[in-house]
């Protein structure tokens, strides 16, 4: 199945949920609306001829330039991308799915952007989503146990955000 | 020498000394056990008390019983106890305080019982001390004199078999206490009474029957304990009517 056919099929089935398709990139990717990610992923996993049953990685890229001067020159507006790398053990194929999110929910700093959790589809997503939440500050709704995983429970902030600042001190340990 | 009472040690009866030593250990730890409220410490004190008791049993000359006490009582029972303690090792159960009323009542009853028993124990004058040494010595002297007289009369230098048989157990008693007790106990358990041969001829089977009963009893107890220790939780399971019958 060529890339085009595959995209057509997805668009036919999910309509507007598939927001954007990029076939020219090094790793071709499709963008999904946040609301449709669970549905799409379940389809990708279960469809007989796709079988993307292996979730390699879930990570978040923060498109943000803290330096105002440089920020003016960037080609993108600030946003978060949740990137799902999938592959199929059976057909040896890979796929990248992206979800674009605002950096803060409703533009209010401190309010985490939300995306539905796919931990019900791939169990491995459980820990990957915890890590994404911990480091990049994305709230995965419907996750069974969304807690920090690498940082301590009481850590403040999301280190992989570009505007993250190391706390001045943590339990008496100097941070900066 | 009389100025230093302790130096009278030359006359000290060492049997007595060791008796007092072990009995103080036994009683002291038994008391500590009652006073202590921590279950594990209680078990610890109990073990020491029991071990000292086995020392007391050794002092009466019953080596086999003493070793048995050490092995079964101290080794077995207390490990079982500690198991129980560990299964329920929670702070709330480790120490449970007793009401003062209980203590007073128990002490009154216990104290009077102790007074009574001690009174009884010391009421028989013959029991207050032991004339074992004197008795044995008299026996030995008598036997020897008799034999010497016989030998002198017959003008011989060797003992007859009957005389040797008479002297041997006496000598064993003098040197070793009751060394033959272990085999006597063993034989008694399988039904042969060496110490009272006349019982055999009367058709008594020694302690064979009790021994067997105890063995079966132990088996039953083991099975029973294993069964009891499994708890039956009555979970109300929905079963079809037909199955219940």
């Amino acid at each position, binding site marked *: 199945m060529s890339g085009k056919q595959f995209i057509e099929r997805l668009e036919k089935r999910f309509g507007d949920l598939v927001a954007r398709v990029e076939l020219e990139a090094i790793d071709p990717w499709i963008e999904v609306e946040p609301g449709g990610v669970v549905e799409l992923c379940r389809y990708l996993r279960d469809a007989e001829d796709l079988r993307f049953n292996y979730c390699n990685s879930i990570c978040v890229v923060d498109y943000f330039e803290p330096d105002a001067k440089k920020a003016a020159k960037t080609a993108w507006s600030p946003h978060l991308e949740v990137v799902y790398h999938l592959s199929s053990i059976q057909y040896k194929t890979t796929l990248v799915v992206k979800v674009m999110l605002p950096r803060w929910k409703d533009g209010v700093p401190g309010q985490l952007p939300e995306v539905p959790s796919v931990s019900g589809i791939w169990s491995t997503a459980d820990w990957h989503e915890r890590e994404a939440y911990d480091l990049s500050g994305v709230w995965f709704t419907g996750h069974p146990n969304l807690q920090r995983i690498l940082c301590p429970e009481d850590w403040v902030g999301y280190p992989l955000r570009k505007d993250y600042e190391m706390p001045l001190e943590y339990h008496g340990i100097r941070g900066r | 020498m009389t100025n230093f009472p302790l130096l009278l040690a030359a006359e000290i009866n060492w049997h007595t000394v060791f008796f007092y030593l072990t009995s103080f250990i036994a009683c002291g730890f*038994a008391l500590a056990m*009652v006073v202590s409220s921590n279950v594990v410490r209680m078990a610890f004190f*109990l073990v020491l008390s029991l071990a000292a008791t086995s020392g007391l049993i050794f002092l009466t000359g019953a080596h086999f019983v003493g070793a048995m006490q050490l092995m079964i009582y101290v080794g077995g029972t207390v490990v079982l106890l500690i198991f129980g303690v560990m299964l329920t090792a929670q702070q709330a159960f480790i120490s449970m305080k007793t009401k003062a009323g*209980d203590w007073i009542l128990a002490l009154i009853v216990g104290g009077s019982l102790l007074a009574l028993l001690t009174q009884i124990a010391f009421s028989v004058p013959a029991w207050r001390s032991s004339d074992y040494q004197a008795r044995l010595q008299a026996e030995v002297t008598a036997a020897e004199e008799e034999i010497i007289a016989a030998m002198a009369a017959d003008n011989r230098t060797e003992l007859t078999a009957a005389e040797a048989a008479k002297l041997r157990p006496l000598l064993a008693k003098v040197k070793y206490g009751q060394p033959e007790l272990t085999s006597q106990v063993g034989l008694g358990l399988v039904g042969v009474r060496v110490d009272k041969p006349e019982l055999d001829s009367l058709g008594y089977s020694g302690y064979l029957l009790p021994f067997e009963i105890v063995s079966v009893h*132990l088996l039953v107890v083991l099975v029973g*304990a294993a069964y009891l220790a499994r708890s039956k939780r009555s979970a109300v399971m929905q079963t079809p009517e037909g199955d219940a019958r």
Partner: protein
Amino acid sequence: MNFLTEPVGLSHFLAVGAFLFVTGVVCMATKRNTLGILMGVELVLNGANINFVAFASPYFREDNLGLEGNLLALFVIVLAAAEAAVALAIALNYYNNHSTIDVDKANELKG
């Protein structure tokens, strides 16, 4: 130091046995802990045992119990072990059902 030069008699052993016995009884009466009571029972049996062995010893009385005393002591030891096993099992069962080993709370007869 007079008492150290005298040989001990049967009475002394009986007194120790009585002391252990009474301690055991007091222990049984005062402990609220099932295991504590069990230990009291052990102590009582132990005190009785001393009496058996003392009466059996030729060191104290001429007409001693002899073998009978020793064998009885043996039986007591063995049966005490058996008794401990059963009592421990009961205590465990009780703990399983009531989540406590406090005997004062054992006021019902069903398991």
